[in-house]
C-alpha cells in the first residue's frame, strides 16, 4: 500500500478499497441473520391473528345469534351477551378516564409550563416509577383502600366489589401514561411560540391554555386515546376488584359489580379445565380476544395518526 501511495495519488485504485473475501462473507452472514430476526415481529403478528381467528370462527359458526344478545354473560349457561361485557368495559374505562384526564393533563401542563427545571427533573422520574407499579397491585389497592374509603363515601352501603372501584384504580394506572405522553407533546412545542405570546403581554396561564395546549393538541389527544386503549385492555384490576368475574347481567350502574371483556377472558381461562369440550365457553374466549384486539388496534391507529400530525408540524 505505502509503496503505491508514494508514486502519486492516481495510483490508488478502487480495487484497493474493496474488502477481502472473508470480511465480505462475514458481512453477508451478519446481514442475513439480522434480517431474519427482524421478521420475527411479522411471525408474531401472524400467529396472533391466526390463533385468534381460527378459534373465533369456530365460535361464530356454532353460536346462535340470539345467544349473543342475551340478558347477561354466563358462558357456562350458554349466554354470551356481548353488550354486557362491552358495557362493563365502557363503564370502567369511562370512570378511569374521568379520573385520569384531568389529573394526567393537569400534571403534564404543570411539569412542562410551570415547574422549574429542578422540580421537573425530580418529579418526572417519580411519575415514571408510579407507571411501573404492576396492575395486580392496583387491583389489591382497589379492594383494600379505594372501595371502602372512596367508593364507600360516595355511595354508602355498596358492595366491596364494584365497577367504580375498579374504574378509579384503572384511572390511577393510566394517569402517569397520559401525563408522560402529553408532557412530551407540550415540551415539543417550540419556545418561540411561548415567547411571542409573552411578548404580546399574555401571562403564563393564557400562554399555556391559549397557545401551547392548542399547538400540542394532537399529541394530547394521542395521549388520551392511548390511555383509553390501555384502560380497555386492562385485566388484573378488573379481575380482582370489579366482582362478577363468573358472569353478570347487563348493567351500566358503576356501583354494581360488573364484567369486562378482559375479566370474562381470565374467568374462562382459569376455569377452562371444566368447560373445555363441553360447550362454546372455550372458543368464546378467542372471540372476545379478537374483539378486544380489533378495538385496541383501531384506537392505536388513530392515536398514531395524531402523533404523526405533531411530528410533521415541528
Amino acid at each position, binding site marked *: 500500500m505505502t509503496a503505491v501511495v508514494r508514486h502519486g495519488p492516481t495510483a490508488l485504485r478502487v480495487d484497493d478499497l474493496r474488502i477481502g473475501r472473508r470480511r465480505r462473507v462475514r458481512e453477508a452472514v451478519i446481514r442475513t441473520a439480522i434480517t431474519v430476526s*427482524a*421478521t420475527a415481529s411479522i411471525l408474531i403478528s401472524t400467529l396472533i391473528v391466526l390463533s*385468534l381467528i381460527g378459534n373465533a370462527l369456530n365460535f361464530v359458526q356454532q353460536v346462535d345469534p340470539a345467544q349473543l344478545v342475551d340478558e347477561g354473560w354466563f358462558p357456562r349457561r350458554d349466554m354470551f351477551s356481548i353488550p354486557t361485557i362491552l358495557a362493563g368495559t365502557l363503564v370502567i374505562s369511562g370512570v378511569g378516564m374521568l379520573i385520569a384526564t384531568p*389529573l394526567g393533563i393537569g400534571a403534564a401542563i404543570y411539569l412542562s409550563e410551570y415547574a422549574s427545571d429542578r422540580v421537573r427533573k425530580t418529579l418526572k422520574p417519580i411519575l415514571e416509577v408510579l407507571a411501573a407499579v404492576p396492575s*395486580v397491585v392496583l387491583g389489591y389497592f382497589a379492594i383494600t383502600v379505594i372501595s371502602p374509603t372512596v367508593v364507600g363515601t360516595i355511595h354508602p352501603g355498596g358492595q366491596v366489589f364494584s365497577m367504580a372501584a375498579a374504574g378509579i384504580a384503572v384511572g390511577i394506572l393510566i394517569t402517569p401514561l397520559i401525563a408522560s405522553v402529553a408532557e412530551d407533546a407540550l415540551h415539543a412545542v417550540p419556545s418561540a411560540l411561548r415567547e411571542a405570546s409573552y411578548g404580546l403581554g399574555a401571562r*403564563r*396561564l393564557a400562554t399555556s391554555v391559549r397557545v401551547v395546549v392548542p399547538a400540542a393538541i394532537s399529541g394530547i389527544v394521542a395521549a388520551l386515546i392511548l390511555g383509553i386503549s390501555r384502560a380497555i385492555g386492562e385485566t388484573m384490576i378488573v379481575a380482582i376488584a370489579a366482582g362478577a368475574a363468573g358472569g353478570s347481567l347487563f348493567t351500566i350502574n358503576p356501583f354494581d359489580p360488573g364484567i369486562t371483556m378482559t375479566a370474562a377472558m381470565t374467568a374462562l*381461562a382459569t376455569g377452562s379445565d371444566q368447560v373445555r369440550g363441553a360447550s362454546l365457553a372455550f372458543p368464546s374466549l378467542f372471540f372476545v380476544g379478537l374483539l*378486544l384486539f380489533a378495538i385496541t388496534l383501531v384506537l392505536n391507529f388513530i392515536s398514531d395518526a395524531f402523533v404523526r400530525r405533531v411530528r410533521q408540524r415541528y
Partner: protein
Amino acid sequence: MTAQTAANRPSAARSAVEAGLHSGRRDWTGMAAALVLLLTLIASLAILFVLLADVFSRALPVFTSRGLDFLGAPSSLNPEIAGVGQAIVGSIVLTIFVIVIALPIGITAAVYLEEYAGDSRFARFVNTNIRNLAGVPAIVYGLLGLAVFVTTLGAGRSLIAGGMTLAILVLPIVVITTAEALRAVPLTIREAAYGVGATRSEVVTGHVLPYAMPGILTGVVLTLARAFGETAPLIMVGAITGVFRSDPQASIADRLQGPFTALPTMVFSWAKQPQEEFRALTAAAIVVLLVVILAVNAGAILLRNRYDRRW
C-alpha cells in the same frame, strides 16, 4: 443607587417590572390556576405514597412474625404457613426465558431497522407492525400462548409456555427502546468509522453499540421489570392460582415442563381469597414484588441520568 441595588438583585428587579406591567395588581387567576395544576401533579404522586404506605403497613406483621420463612415457604391454603418460595423461583425462571429469547432477537431486530434497512418498504412495514404489537393488550398475548405453545406445540401449562409467552410480549418493547437508543448515537460516529475503512457490521459492533449501550441497558432493564409484574398472560397460559407441590428431586427438564406460578399470579390468587388473614399475606407478597420492581426501576433511572449524554 436604587437602580444599582435592583440590578444586584435580579429577582427584585423582575418583580418590580412585573408589578409595573400589571399596574400593581396581583394575578390571582394565574396563581389559582398554578395551584390547581400543582395539586393535580401532587395528587398523582400522593397516590403512589398512599399505596406504598398502605401495603407496607399491612405486610409488616407477616414479616415480623414469620421473617424470612415467608420468602422460602411453598404455597398453601393455610395462611399460617403459606409462602412465596415457588413463586419467586417461577418469576426468576420466567425472567431468564425473557432474557435468553427476547433480548437477542429484539436487539438485533432494532439494529436491522436502524442500521441496515434504511427507508425500504419492508423496514417501514416491520416498523409499523412492531409499534402496533406494542399496543396489543397483554391478555391477547396470553391467548396466543394458550393457542400456540400450550395447545398446538404441546408444551402444556408449563414454565416453558409461560416463558415463551412473556418473551413474545416484551419483544416489541425491546425493539422500540433499543431503536431509540441507537438513533441517539450521532451520524458522525458512523461516518468516522466508515471513513477509516470499517465495514457495516464493524461500525455497528465496534462503535454504535458501545455508545448506545447505556441507553439499551436502561430500556432492557425497565422492560424486564415490566415482565416481572405481568400477570394476565401467565393466567391465560395456566399459571397455577391454587396450590401445587414441587418435587425437589425432579430434574430441571421436568420442572420446566411442570406446573408453575409466579409472584404476580400469587398476588392475584391470594387477593381473591375471602379470609382476612390472606389480606396481610397478599400485602407481604406485593411488598416482595414491589421491592424488586421499584429497585430495578430506580437503578435504571439512575443509570440513565448518570450516562445521559448530550452530543
